[in-house]
């Protein structure tokens, strides 16, 4: 270890030196230097790449079915949209709470977000089972593809929120160190943004 530490200036940087020393610090766990800008940028680049995927599906919906629409349950659509928007608020409040060191509120809001996420996925599943159009119809193809891909993101988001909840219960995250919470909550908001465009495209236009 000492050899590595001595060599680092020659390797070209105080940053490398700091990383090695910090990584093997007295705390005995991974105490890597914080690079908020790189983490933020990486996450947003991921969102941009995901956006292309969803944009392609959105385009395909109008290419396949024009501005026509199948018979969908409007109240259910409005209901699950409201649930997802509400879950964004609870996710946001969860992040604000841990940023203030309020673990109780953080866990409570996170739990509510998970429940709302499951409710949204359940609503989509119900819509699938009661849909009056087939998968082979142009609108049906678009509907099942778009809601299916989006729901898979919701389910993976719920999984990640669950992991953060589990870690939070075990004492992970603090007011100073909660990047894991921030990243997962941002991902959840991104899933919400996608639905903001999918909802009118699938339920309202036509």
């Amino acid at each position, binding site marked *: 270890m000492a050899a590595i530490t001595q060599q680092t200036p020659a390797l070209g940087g105080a940053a490398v030196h700091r990383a090695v020393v910090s990584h093997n610090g007295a705390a005995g766990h991974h105490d890597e230097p914080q690079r908020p*800008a790189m983490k933020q940028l990486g996450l947003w680049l991921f969102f941009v790449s995901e956006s292309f995927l969803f944009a392609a599906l959105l385009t395909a919906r109008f290419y396949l079915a024009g501005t026509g629409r199948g018979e969908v349950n409007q109240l259910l659509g409005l209901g699950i949209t409201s649930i997802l928007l509400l879950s*964004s*608020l609870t996710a946001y409040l969860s992040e604000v709470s841990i940023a203030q060191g309020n673990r109780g509120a953080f866990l409570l809001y996170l739990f509510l977000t998970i429940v709302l996420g499951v409710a949204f996925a359940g609503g989509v599943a119900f819509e699938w089972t009661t849909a009056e159009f087939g998968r082979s119809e142009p609108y049906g193809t678009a509907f099942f593809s778009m809601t299916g891909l989006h729901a898979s993101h919701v389910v993976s988001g719920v999984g990640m929120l669950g992991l953060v909840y589990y870690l939070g219960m075990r004492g992970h995250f603090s007011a100073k160190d909660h990047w894991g919470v921030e990243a997962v909550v941002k991902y959840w908001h*991104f899933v919400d943004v996608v639905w*903001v465009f999918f909802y*009118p495209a699938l339920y*309202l236009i036509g």
Partner: protein
Amino acid sequence: MENPELLFGVPMLIIGGLGLLVAIELLLAGEAPKSKAETAVRAGIMAFVGLGAATIGEYFLAIEMSQPMVLLIVIAVFKAALIVQFFMHVMRVRDAHAEEE
């Protein structure tokens, strides 16, 4: 133009949306906040109220109008902007870069 209401509706929605964004910013800046957390919570709740109002608006717009596509797109963009600005804090990317430099 097939839908003359769009001629007035779209600019009104854009102006209204921008007005709401400005109103939120002014309200947040207006009073001396008791704490950073309180300001953050208030911003989140106000953004949620804006999202809810826009969602109800687009729902009734779709029921009442025959071709509301343009208006619905405008509302969707406005809602996405609310989430990206107030929930996702997109500006923190720039701030974090400035801090590191």
